């Protein structure tokens, strides 16, 4: 008898616990909230330099907008009057897992929109599913131009300009700021981002500085391989005077550590397209004199830039997380701001609580203010953002005892990206018509 009572109690307890847990896992959506999944690398090698700073950037801006504590033009509380409820998901695990996770977020967790994604592989895999599930999706970091050049998407937007802009701006900076570059080589990770980055940089260099020559042995080590001794030797042996790299995450840090000891940076000029996180992480170990980019007006490049929004972001981020916001912090925050601007515009246009189609309509072709510059959805039928991209040279600020960037030059979007309706490769091959920088 006692056994039976115990068994029944256990059953009831189990059912009760299950119901409670279910309720906790999927809280009922309040009518005045908008649920968004923020996806970034929370584990794996990309978490430290990209994923977690990105997540934090989104979280900070979401909380501030919900509370109405952001400076103008985002001082009104909420997103079109709605409170944004964020849930955070991990981008690690590969493309197949991301597709499954995306379905889970939309179909089981019933999010109204998905925001984020760092890897180009994730973006390319998720976009068709977003279309199938008709869910507003805002890509934050990924760079491949193929996302909107191979297909048109109704539900997908990207607030980060694509990789062609980074490569053309790099070539422009070399033309404007570096003397005596005769031959250049590259070390880029062996996947879509690294291959594309080198390809576009090479074409842009040939168009902008035709007297320079590319080395015939550009290096493409495996992503996250960590050991670059042989590649460093190969480049040290050739007569190139500039080395291009789109390394990011721990790879850029390993490369810099291994190359520094071998005098690599004394012999070669080095341009890093996306390695700015290493400048902060390595401190004095990061070589001064490196040309560094952040794929926009982000991170260390705009750390000294005046402006109410930018200063607020830097100070609030440091206060909350104890470190400077990195490139991805800005990129994720930029996606949140695009959502805020669209939802506010939707309310202004329609006078009602924003619906999905109204938000998409408001976001298409939108111009909005980001933390340190303006952004416009000018490409991809109004779904692909363009914005300026800057480069500068690393230095050490003795006064503040921290790294800094000097000689910053920012190139406007029309100089570094193709006009609407033109494919990047065709535009580059045609000599970048319309680019007058």
């Amino acid at each position, binding site marked *: 008898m006692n056994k039976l009572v115990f068994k029944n109690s256990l059953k009831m307890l189990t059912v009760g616990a299950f119901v409670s847990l279910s309720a906790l896992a999927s809280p009922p959506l309040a009518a005045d909230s908008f649920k968004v999944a923020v996806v970034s690398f*929370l*584990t*794996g*090698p990309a*978490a*430290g*330099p990209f*994923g*977690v700073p990105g997540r934090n950037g989104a979280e900070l801006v979401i909380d501030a907008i919900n509370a109405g504590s952001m400076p103008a033009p985002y001082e009104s509380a909420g997103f079109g009057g709605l409170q944004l409820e964020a849930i955070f998901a991990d981008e690690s695990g590969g493309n197949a897992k991301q597709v499954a996770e995306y379905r889970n977020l939309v179909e089981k967790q019933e999010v109204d929109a998905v925001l984020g994604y760092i890897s180009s592989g994730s973006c390319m895999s998720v976009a068709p599913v977003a279309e199938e599930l008709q869910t507003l999706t805002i890509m934050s970091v990924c760079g491949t131009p193929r996302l909107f050049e191979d297909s048109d998407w109704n539900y997908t937007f990207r607030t980060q300009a694509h990789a062609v802009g980074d490569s053309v701006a790099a070539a422009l900076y070399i033309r404007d700021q570096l003397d005596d570059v005769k031959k250049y080589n590259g070390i880029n990770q*062996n996947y879509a981002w690294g291959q594309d980055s080198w390809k576009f940089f090479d074409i842009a260099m040939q168009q902008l500085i035709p007297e320079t020559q590319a080395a015939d*042995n*550009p*290096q*493409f*080590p*495996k992503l*996250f*391989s*960590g*050991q670059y*001794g*042989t*590649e460093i*030797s*190969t480049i*040290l*042996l050739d007569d190139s005077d500039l080395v291009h790299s789109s390394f990011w*995450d*721990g*790879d850029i*840090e*390993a490369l810099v*550590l*291994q190359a520094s*000891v*071998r*005098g690599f940076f004394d012999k070669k000029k080095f341009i890093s397209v996306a390695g700015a996180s290493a400048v902060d*992480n*390595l401190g004095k*170990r990061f070589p001064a004199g490196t040309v560094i980019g952040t794929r926009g007006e982000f991170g260390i490049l705009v750390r000294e830039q005046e402006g109410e929004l930018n200063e607020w972001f830097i100070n609030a981020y440091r206060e909350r997380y104890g470190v400077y916001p990195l490139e991805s912090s800005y990129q994720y925050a930029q996606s949140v701001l695009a959502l805020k601007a669209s939802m506010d515009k939707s309310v202004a246009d329609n006078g009602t609580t924003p619906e999905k189609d109204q938000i998409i309509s408001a976001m298409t072709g939108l111009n909005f203010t980001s933390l340190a510059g303006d952004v416009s959805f000018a490409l991809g039928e109004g779904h692909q953002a363009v914005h300026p991209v800057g480069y500068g040279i690393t230095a050490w600020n003795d006064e503040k005892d921290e790294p800094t960037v000097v000689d910053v030059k920012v190139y406007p979007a029309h100089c570094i990206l193709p006009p609407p309706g033109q494919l990047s490769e065709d535009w580059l091959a045609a000599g970048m018509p319309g680019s007058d920088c």
Partner: protein
Amino acid sequence: MQTAITVFLDGMTYASYLFIVSVGLTIVFGVMKILNVAHGGFYAWGAYSAAYAIGLAAELGFPDWFAFILIGLSSMFVGIVLGVLVERLILRKLYEHEEVIVILATFGLFLVLEDFILLVFGVNPYFAYQPMVFLGSVEMGGIFRDVYSLTLLGLAAFVAFACWYVLNCTKWGKILSTVIYDREISLAIGIDVKAVFVWTFVVGTMLGALGGAYIAPTISVAPGIGIDIIVLSFAVVVIGGMGSIPGALIGALMVGNLRAIAVHKFPEFELFVIFAVMAAVLMVRPEGLFAPAKIRRI
């Protein structure tokens, strides 16, 4: 000539690295017949422990050379703690099960070790460059090489010699050889096979951790560093023959040197060459180049 010297040194350095990280894997397989996927986790724990200890020592003002002692201590600490815990709590319960179950268990363990790293060390990278900077660089073949990477050659030679000496010149080596050839006969003649397994696994774990600890000063120690190394180690061990220490050495030398040639002359084939070598060897000798002879029971 300049290129030839550079290719040779690059190849030998990479081969040394491959040998150090794969020898523990092959020892464990040779003695215990366990394909230990968690080896990558031990590598990562070695790297994290060393990086943390070296960083702390630098903060506390210890001299840079002290890092070498910390590398050794970290490897031993990880090897003893994780090795004993894993063998006692997990593997011992699985010896009678099919190999595939054991592989799945070690794969699960690998994931747990990876997540445990996140829990203990977080997601931000650790740096332990002090010993690499301390040793500086030297000009060889017309370019500067970091001395620290060159010391890998010495470490690999020491590990190879120690393995050979223990297996061939000590009583412990004879016991190991007996267990490798036949576990049942070993039991019958009074060998404490369980103790042999514990010690073997601790040594294998220690070698995996040593690989990570020694490499830590040259890399950004970040989550996920153990994933790639397990794939590379498997390739080396499969080429040389599962369970063969000379096989691991030859496999590492082949992969290291062919990869160096590829990077210098055909960089687009860098990744391909490692697995092309493995495929070629397996086509000719499916059991690998130096797989220990198997007893056929009649």
